[in-house]
């Protein structure tokens, strides 16, 4: 419960203690760890999505395990890949079929802003058609960036923030760098 909002109070302690919070905060806390996803995969980013969703990187660790094959059962719409003008009505329809509450992640540069396609065929970013919560740039984004984007979405869900966000580069924390170096030294010694 540590990541519930600042309105949460823990009263008492031990076995008889209880917690007070706001109802919507509790609801959002529950929602963000139970995201059913609908991948709308159109292009090469799909391969990277498969990598991110498969056991090595394992989206399931973040409560976003179950892909649904109907948008009616999904909470998160992953738009993975280039969206052409001809596909735009289909994408919007799928978004409209999802039930509230719903979130959208633009996976990769093409879905976020059209990428290097500036022409007659490509939609310059899916936020021209449907509201987007998190944009993950990259061509394609690395699985770590995808996980970062998912965690950012969870953060936004927890705070009830519905404004669009762009994922930016994250620096590796110093202690991680040090532990990586130590691992490297251990390997060299073997």
């Amino acid at each position, binding site marked *: 419960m540590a990541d519930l909002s600042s309105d949460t109070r823990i009263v008492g302690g031990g076995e008889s203690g209880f917690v007070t919070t706001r109802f919507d905060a509790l609801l959002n806390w529950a929602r963000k760890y139970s995201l059913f996803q609908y991948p709308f995969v159109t292009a090469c980013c799909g391969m990277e999505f498969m990598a991110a969703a498969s056991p090595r990187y394992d989206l399931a660790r973040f409560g976003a395990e179950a892909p649904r094959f109907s948008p009616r059962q999904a909470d998160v719409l992953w738009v993975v890949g280039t969206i052409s003008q001809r596909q735009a*009505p289909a994408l919007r329809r799928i978004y409209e079929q999802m039930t509230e509450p719903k979130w959208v992640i633009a996976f990769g540069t093409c879905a976020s802003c059209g990428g290097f396609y500036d022409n007659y065929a490509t939609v*310059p*970013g899916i936020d*021209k058609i449907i509201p987007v919560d998190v944009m993950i740039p990259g061509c394609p984004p690395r699985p770590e960036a995808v996980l970062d984007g998912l965690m*950012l979405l969870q953060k936004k869900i927890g705070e009830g923030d519905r404004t669009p*966000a*762009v994922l930016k580069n994250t620096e590796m924390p110093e202690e991680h760098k040090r532990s990586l170096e130590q691992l490297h030294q251990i390997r060299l010694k073997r």
Partner: protein
Amino acid sequence: MSKIILDRLQEKFGADVLETSSFRGDDVAVVRPSRWREVAEFVKNDPACQCDYFVDLSAVDRCDPNTDDLDMPDRFEVFFIVHSLKKKHRVRVKARVSGEDPRIDSIASVWSGANWQEREAFDMFGVRFEGHPDLRRILMYEEFEGHPLRKEYPANRAQPLVAYRENTFDKLGPFLRDEGMPLNRSVSVDLERTPENPHALDKNN
């Protein structure tokens, strides 16, 4: 590479074969558009050619929109590439049609593989294939105006099927720690969490 097909074409069609060339095994013949279909039937059925395998058909817009007349008589170069599985040779046949009224015979009845390729050439360049069983757009949508691969089509002109949303980025700073800049802004704010900025995330978090 032998030039059997080119020799046979010149034998059969004479002056209607306007040019021939051969470069590293690529045999090319430019023919008069009025003989287009006959040439196609000939390279398929002639015992010395036997081109039974259809490879590709498309068009090229040869004009420079800054200097050339868009209606110039040899603006679009329609070509097909066919291959013979028996003789193991291939040929590229071209014909040039005018920009004013680009028309040429369909060869979809000779090789049925040409059907969709002709639809694509029609969609992208507006070349009309006469006698085609179903000449509709194949890649673009019916509402699309013009032909996108023509040189006079503006490179970035889009014709959206879905109206674009407005005010897609209404958020002002401060942004969350993990959020980059909005696409159309050039400042990023990285604040500590204070009562005034409850959404700014703690750097140690």
